[in-house]
């Protein structure tokens, strides 16, 4: 912990920030290529006098009209006998200048409009956004043509016309981002401490809008360059300057096509394409850095899990309905050490049994559950161990075979009822889909009756069948998810924190429902939770996980009254117990380990009040205690161990 704290100590200076930015940015290949293309062209424009072999608009000789590219004129010559390469180099100056300045104007206007509309809302927003809408409907180019034609087509005019017409998308993008940021809790918190509007905009809204504005700026620049080229090509450019568009215009208007002088058209066109492409690629790279959500996430499904066969693993078929034997799961990411999310976890579950899987966030409990259904994300790999369902090793099945077991054999109730339901389809529809998808042969005419039956089973009246998820309350949505999980008569249900976001009373209702279903249908349930109280109320067996390993596994009564693992003991002490009010809660100092930085010895050792030297160096193995399947992974639980459980100050101080 201490080490990571120091390494991540960052300098706040601009240079350091840029360095950090670059480190991330360079991972995006398209971005780097785009930036390279852009920088190259900017350098060309800046050092134009050094690069161009001839002067600006310098006519070499009238006889040299439309010379094809040769050693003297690598891009050939144009209608006026001017060197195309020199004009191209100088043209870069004009095109880029127009692009950057026009975009600057657009971004400023769009940014301010969007910010004001989004932040102040009400009448301001109405006015500004309607204005934006109107501007958006009017096609840009004809309007520009009209305005430029009416005014003198000087470079400055063109910059302003393009700039003043190009802000609409920016305004919309900035407004929506401002709205999103405004509704976030930290803005409310700033208001609560008395921050004024100016403060909130400058400290909270702007920093969050900036990244989007930067990406938007890149796009607006390329649009401005395209617009300038189009205007110039239409003969509305500044006649005293020669931009790429102007070059195209001259070449086209003065018979380059008929003279077969492709070079006079292709090279300036190439310049436009080069810059626009460079900007687009650069924008893409920027977006990836500034919007981390676009990064390929480790949860994205891609390649199937390839299971590495353990050399000496001999499957021992089991009698239990569901049995997990020595399961280990690692998350493997390129260029990083594998995160050992689950290691050597075993448990078994019989019909009608309820197992509580208890652990804090990041202890690997959700990973373990996903592995049971072979639904691990691509980075997650089962590196060892077996999962038996009715004697069949699930880890050896292929996707098709596994699909037959999912939902009909083992199904899952996900956490977060709102996200797990599709908001645009009725609940009844979604349950019907669950049936059809997993039992394609199910008689269609029987489905409505089955859906009603399932809803009835979880206590939802049939007339709610055609309602959408948003018309359901939190508790009802959770019930609907349970109905969905029951759709194909599974024998095992995995309930992943099904009550976590719910109020105590609704929580009690859901627990009662699960308990009654278990009795009525003989279901076996794995109940994943961080709430020890819930577990005590209804479970038969409890598996306590810590940092990816089994801390303790025993009957529920043993866990609560005769726990051997210090983590279990401490966790119980931290749990409020209203039967003993006024008792001060004890807390466990420190924080759970990160899976990519696990301690060398016992994973709980840094927080353990009873840790001794060995705990910090050697990982304890699973020790069997007594004859009733009580297991604890603690050196203190070793048979014949005489070290008493005593309070010693934890070794690592925060």
């Amino acid at each position, binding site marked *: 912990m201490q080490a990571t704290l120091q390494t991540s100590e960052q300098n706040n200076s601009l240079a350091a920030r840029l360095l950090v930015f670059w480190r991330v940015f360079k991972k995006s290949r398209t971005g780097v290529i785009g930036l390279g293309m852009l920088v190259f062209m900017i350098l060309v424009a800046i050092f134009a006098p050094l690069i161009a072999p001839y002067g600006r608009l310098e006519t070499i000789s009238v006889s040299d009209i439309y010379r094809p590219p040769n050693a003297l004129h690598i891009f050939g010559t144009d209608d006026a006998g001017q060197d195309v390469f020199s004009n191209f180099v100088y043209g870069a100056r004009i095109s880029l200048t127009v692009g950057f300045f026009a975009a600057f104007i657009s971004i400023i206007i769009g940014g301010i409009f969007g910010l004001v509309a989004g932040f102040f809302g009400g009448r301001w927003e109405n006015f500004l956004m309607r204005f934006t809408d109107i501007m958006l409907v009017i096609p840009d180019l004809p309007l520009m043509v009209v305005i430029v034609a009416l005014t003198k087509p000087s470079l400055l005019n063109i910059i302003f016309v393009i700039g003043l017409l190009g802000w609409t998308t920016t305004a919309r993008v900035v407004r929506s981002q401002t709205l999103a940021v405004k509704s976030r809790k930290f803005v409310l918190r700033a208001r609560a401490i008395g921050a004024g509007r100016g403060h909130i905009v400058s400290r909270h809204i702007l920093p969050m809008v900036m990244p989007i504005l930067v990406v938007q700026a890149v796009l607006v620049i390329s649009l401005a360059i395209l617009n300038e080229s189009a205007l110039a090509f239409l003969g509305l450019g500044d006649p005293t300057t020669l931009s790429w568009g102007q070059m195209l215009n001259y070449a086209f208007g003065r018979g380059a096509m008929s003279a077969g002088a492709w070079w006079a058209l292709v090279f300036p066109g190439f310049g436009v394409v080069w810059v626009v492409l460079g900007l687009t690629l650069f924008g893409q790279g920027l977006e990836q850095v500034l919007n981390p959500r676009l990064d390929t996430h480790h949860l994205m499904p891609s390649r199937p899990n390839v299971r590495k066969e353990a050399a000496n693993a001999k499957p021992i078929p089991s009698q239990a309905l569901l049995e997990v034997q020595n399961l280990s799961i690692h998350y493997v990411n390129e260029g990083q050490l594998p995160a050992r999310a689950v290691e050597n976890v075993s448990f078994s579950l019989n019909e009608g049994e309820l197992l509580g899987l208890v652990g804090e966030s990041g202890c690997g409990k959700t990973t373990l559950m996903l592995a049971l259904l072979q639904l691990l994300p691509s980075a997650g790999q089962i590196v060892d161990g077996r999962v038996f369902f009715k004697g069949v090793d699930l880890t050896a099945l292929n996707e098709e075979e596994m699909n037959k077991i999912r939902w009909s054999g083992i199904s899952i109730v996900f956490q977060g009822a709102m996200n797990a339901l599709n908001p645009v389809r009725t609940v009844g529809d979604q349950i019907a889909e669950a049936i059809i998808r997993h039992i394609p042969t199910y008689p269609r005419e029987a489905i409505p009756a089955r859906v009603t039956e399932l809803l009835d089973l979880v206590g939802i009246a049939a007339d709610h069948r055609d309602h959408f998820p948003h018309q359901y309350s939190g508790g009802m949505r959770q019930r609907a998810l349970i109905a969905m999980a029951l759709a194909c008569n599974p024998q095992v249900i995995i309930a992943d924190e099904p009550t976590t976001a719910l109020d105590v009373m609704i929580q009690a209702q859901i627990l009662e429902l699960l308990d009654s279903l278990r009795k009525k249908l003989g279901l076996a349930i794995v109940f994943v939770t961080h709430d020890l109280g819930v577990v005590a109320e209804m479970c038969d067996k409890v598996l306590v996980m810590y940092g990816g390993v089994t801390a303790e596994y025993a009957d529920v009564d043993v866990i609560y009254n005769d726990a051997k693992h210090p983590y279990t003991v401490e966790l119980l002490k931290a749990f409020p117990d*209203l039967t003993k009010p006024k008792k001060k809660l004890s807390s466990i100092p420190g924080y759970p380990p990160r899976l990519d930085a696990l301690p060398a010895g016992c994973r709980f050792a840094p927080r353990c009040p009873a840790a001794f030297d060995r705990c910090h160096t050697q990982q304890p193995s699973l020790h069997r205690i007594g004859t009733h399947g009580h297991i604890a992974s603690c050196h203190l639980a070793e048979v014949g161990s005489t070290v008493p459980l005593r309070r010693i100050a934890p070794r690592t101080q925060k």
Partner: protein
Amino acid sequence: MSKEFLEVQGLKKYFEAGRPSLFSKDTRSVHAVDGVDFTLRRSEVIALVGESGCGKSTLALLLMGLEEPTAGSIKFEGMDITHLNDHQRKQKDLRRKIQMVFQDPYESLNPTQTIEEIVTEPLLVHGMLNTPDREERVTKALEDAGLKPADVYRKRYPHELSGGQRQRVVIAAALVLEPEIILADEPVSMLDVSIRAEFINLLAELRITRQIAVIFITHDLGSVGFFADRVAVMYLGRIVEIGTMLEVLEKTQHPYTKALISVIPVPNPRLRHERIILQGETPNPINIPSGCRFHPRCPVAIEACALTDPAMVTLSKTHQSACLLLVK
């Protein structure tokens, strides 16, 4: 009336909910907070308990002046602060004295600011940036919030911290202003169990060391039972029972409180007990039931409950409850 530290009387907040249909004349309103009275003493901890939709979070926003009350009054140290605007609140130092801690530590910190910037920000807002002891104050706030040593955290960003640490940063940003009241809206519900206790202990410590009063809003009576002085149970915008913690837990009067207490999980399988599980959910606060607002879900309701809205019955100097069965 004596000069209470914080006194809330008949506080109401109705939100417009639009018309029931396009052609209907009358508009409907959501009775989010519907007549709440309570007082808070200096360095007292009061727990506001209720299910979602009972109006407890709206009540917090009203107390913070982030929503305008429809009726009723809020007095702080004898001064009526009900209808002060942002500017007046700041002038009267209320924005410093009353601080809030939000439920979600992941959402309530700006991801682009460092911890130091976050904790210094309140000083900036209150024009105290140039006080000579600024550094010290920030350090002290961080360390009092349990982020020790402070220097380790200063330059870090919220995403580098765990949920528990973030919630401590929120607390530190409140402490730096040396507040007198902290309003905590479900501050631990997003935290891991092993860290929850630590956080609650931190609040319990602060009330002693800094004389801070705490209004702890939660749906889970179990999580605050042991550290609150008093408990107020809310249902559909009203307080239905209020009393000292022991009175509410052990001499429970209101059937709703009884049900709430019965469903609090007891971490011991040997003590599994009959739970009073109320059916259905808190009704929509647009259509408040007639008579006692709890009667449709009440397991012991009598006929009269549908007709008469029960008044608060005083059971002891500190204990009050609103139930018709107590009037007999």
